[in-house]
């Protein structure tokens, strides 16, 4: 069976060129057909989406949009729903991730888009979300209304299944028309979501398109960038630099680059009762989607002088990674990924030659690896795919100095510490560029309304139209009731 990705309202499948992507990662071969549009088709599609967005979506109350998204998400959460069943069946096959991990990951991820959570998401960015529906009085005086772009172009990454839903749903909430380009690694979730939206509200479906082109195909990319009012792009620095270079100067381009996240454990969490549980949580953050997310931890800084030593903690993490390997086996790595893991492991092993207190722990199959250092080290990326560094530090207050050189790359910190420590550390970490602090075990599941890389997901997408107080006052003079 060949699956079809993409969602192209107004375009008949016969008019479109289709290419086949073949996936072998999950053990079974799966083929996915993806659309490859011509420049003219992209232009036409863009124009249709802009029109639909202007004529329908801009007039749709946010509450109505919320209801439609909620209904789509509910269907995706229902395990007897055909879309959900397809996702559970095929996402593991194309991504290689363990099917149980995908199943549980889908539920925990999708439930952050329920209506109640989306309301939270809206009120994070808008004091009064009605400003998306009509002009509202502004605290400074006058009136304002927020407008989303007519055409928001999304260029998505495929590292974690379903990730495109964040920006697509954000686009819908601000009433933007959307064209998204899916990654060759995971082209399905965004396509299914668009189809589900169209089934629930066909006219809203006309405001979304999901397409594909091979990464690096600058012609297709250029065609879309030329039409877009706003661009949101995910990927590595080189890809994003290229997208920026190709984006017209009058078009805003929001880029989400690769980030590094890490964990911190205070000695207050290191007694014989709590330490294992904390290690279990840390291992879960490492295992989830094999560290492919920007929020996945690479390093854990562990405070000394707890009842459980940092080295013992590292051993607990190692043992938990071994247990997780049985519960959620790691996906088969590509040759490049396996080389990265081997290189990282080798580098860490070399360090142990000159330092008796260091240790590298790993299983015989190489499905996970923990490197322990008794002396403080700067933050550094791991070899990914279940490799992590555990670093002993005298006190957690020493950590900001070890991470500050990497300000541009920092994102999430998972912390296990007392309330006093948590708040003190938050102040120190915020200064050096950390944008999100979560509990361990929650690093890879950002809450609804989080500020991705510290930015405002929705506010960044809109422009304000303001009626200044002066205009109001001046209008008074021209009223028919002027005395």
């Amino acid at each position: 069976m060949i699956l079809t990705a993409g969602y192209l309202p107004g375009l008949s499948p016969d008019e479109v060129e289709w290419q086949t992507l073949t996936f072998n990662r999950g053990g079974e071969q799966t083929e996915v057909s993806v659309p490859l549009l011509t420049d003219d088709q992209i232009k036409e599609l863009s124009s249709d989406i802009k029109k639909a967005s202007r004529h329908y979506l801009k007039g749709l109350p946010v509450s109505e949009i919320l209801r439609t998204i909620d209904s789509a998400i509910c269907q995706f959460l229902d395990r007897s729903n055909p879309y959900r069943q397809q996702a559970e069946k095929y996402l593991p096959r194309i991504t290689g991730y363990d099917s149980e991990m995908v199943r549980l990951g889908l539920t925990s991820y999708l439930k952050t888009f329920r209506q109640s959570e989306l309301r939270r998401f809206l009120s994070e960015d808008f004091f009064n979300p009605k400003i998306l529906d009509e002009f509202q009085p502004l605290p400074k005086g006058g009136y304002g209304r927020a407008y989303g772009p007519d055409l928001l172009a999304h260029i998505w990454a495929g590292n974690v299944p379903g990730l495109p839903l964040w920006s697509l749903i954000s686009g819908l909430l601000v009433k933007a028309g959307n064209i998204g380009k899916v990654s060759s690694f995971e082209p399905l979730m965004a396509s299914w979501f668009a189809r589900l939206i169209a089934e629930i509200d066909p006219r809203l479906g006309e405001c979304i398109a999901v397409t594909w082109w091979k990464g690096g195909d600058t012609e297709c990319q250029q065609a879309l960038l030329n039409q877009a009012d706003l661009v949101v792009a995910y990927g590595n620095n080189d890809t994003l630099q290229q997208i920026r270079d190709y984006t017209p100067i009058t078009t805003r381009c929001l880029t989400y680059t690769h980030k590094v996240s890490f964990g911190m454990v205070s000695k207050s969490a290191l007694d014989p009762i709590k330490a294992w549980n904390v290690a279990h949580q840390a291992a879960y953050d490492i295992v989830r989607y094999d560290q492919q997310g920007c929020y996945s931890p690479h390093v854990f800084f562990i405070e000394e002088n707890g009842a459980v030593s940092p080295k013992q903690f590292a051993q607990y993490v190692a043992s938990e990674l071994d247990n997780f390997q049985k519960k959620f086996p790691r996906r088969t790595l590509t040759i490049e990924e396996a080389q990265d893991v081997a290189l990282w492991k080798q580098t860490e092993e070399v360090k142990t030659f000159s330092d008796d207190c260091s240790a590298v722990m790993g299983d015989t199959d190489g499905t996970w690896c923990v490197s322990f250092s008794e002396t403080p080290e700067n933050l550094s990326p791991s070899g990914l795919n279940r490799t992590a560094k555990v670093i002993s530090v005298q006190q957690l207050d020493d950590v900001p100095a070890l991470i500050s050189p990497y300000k541009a790359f920092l994102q999430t910190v998972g912390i296990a510490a007392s309330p006093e420590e948590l708040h003190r550390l938050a102040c120190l970490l915020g200064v050096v560029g950390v944008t999100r602090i979560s509990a361990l075990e929650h690093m890879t599941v950002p809450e609804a309304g989080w500020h991705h890389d510290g930015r405002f997901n929705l506010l960044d997408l809109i422009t304000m139209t303001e009626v200044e107080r002066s205009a109001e006052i001046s209008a008074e003079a021209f009223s028919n009731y002027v005395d």
Partner: protein
Amino acid sequence: MNLNGKIILVTGSSRGIGATIAKAFASKGATVIVNYIQNAGSAAEVVTDCKKLGGDALAIKADVTSAEQIHEMIDQVLGNFAKIDVVVNNAFKPYSFDPESRKQFWDLNWKDYQGQLDGALYSTYTLCQAVLPTLKKRTQGSIINIASDLVARPTIPYHEYTTAKSALIGFSRNLAVELGPLGIRVNCVAPGLVYPTDASLKTKEHFKEELIAQTPLRRIAAPEDVAGPVLFLASDWSKFMTGQTLYVDGGLVMR
């Protein structure tokens, strides 16, 4: 461990723990009788897998709560292979391990108990009776009955299921005493919660997490974990063990 030439009967082995046990035996060169009740397709897949793993296998449909069908199955096995070395009583009446929607004691009636007793005890009793003449002839054999660690630690009171499994352990100990002088060993393997199986599909994550936190080896069992101790009890490595129950639950129960 080499089980070449051994004829092993595993009841309820078209899926779940039974299928894994069947394949583990086959991987050691044994010939496995894959007993099933409904799913011929799955049983055929297990047979194919067993052959790929280096053993031999034959699927036989039989409801182990029917004496008639059991006897027919044993006749068929003996007709094909002339002997049986090991019997693994793994089949049980379908049961869903769902802590949130289990029946409470006052919601149960005797039929519920009877159903589980038939599934676990009557089927084992009948199969043992049927296979005994051939085991006696050769004064050797190993019977392995799959129980549950809930017998020792009913974390969730699945009354009817656990009561039947408790009876199975009592049954096995008595049979061990009876058959010991004839060279036939009888033992039990008592797994903890095994995931994934059809029976445990509805067990919620948070419950599994709570169980994991209390388990010294910090995870729950996979079907593969159960196969090792079963193979051990089937082999000569355990030749001086009978009437025992091996708990396979990561140390949750210690006795």
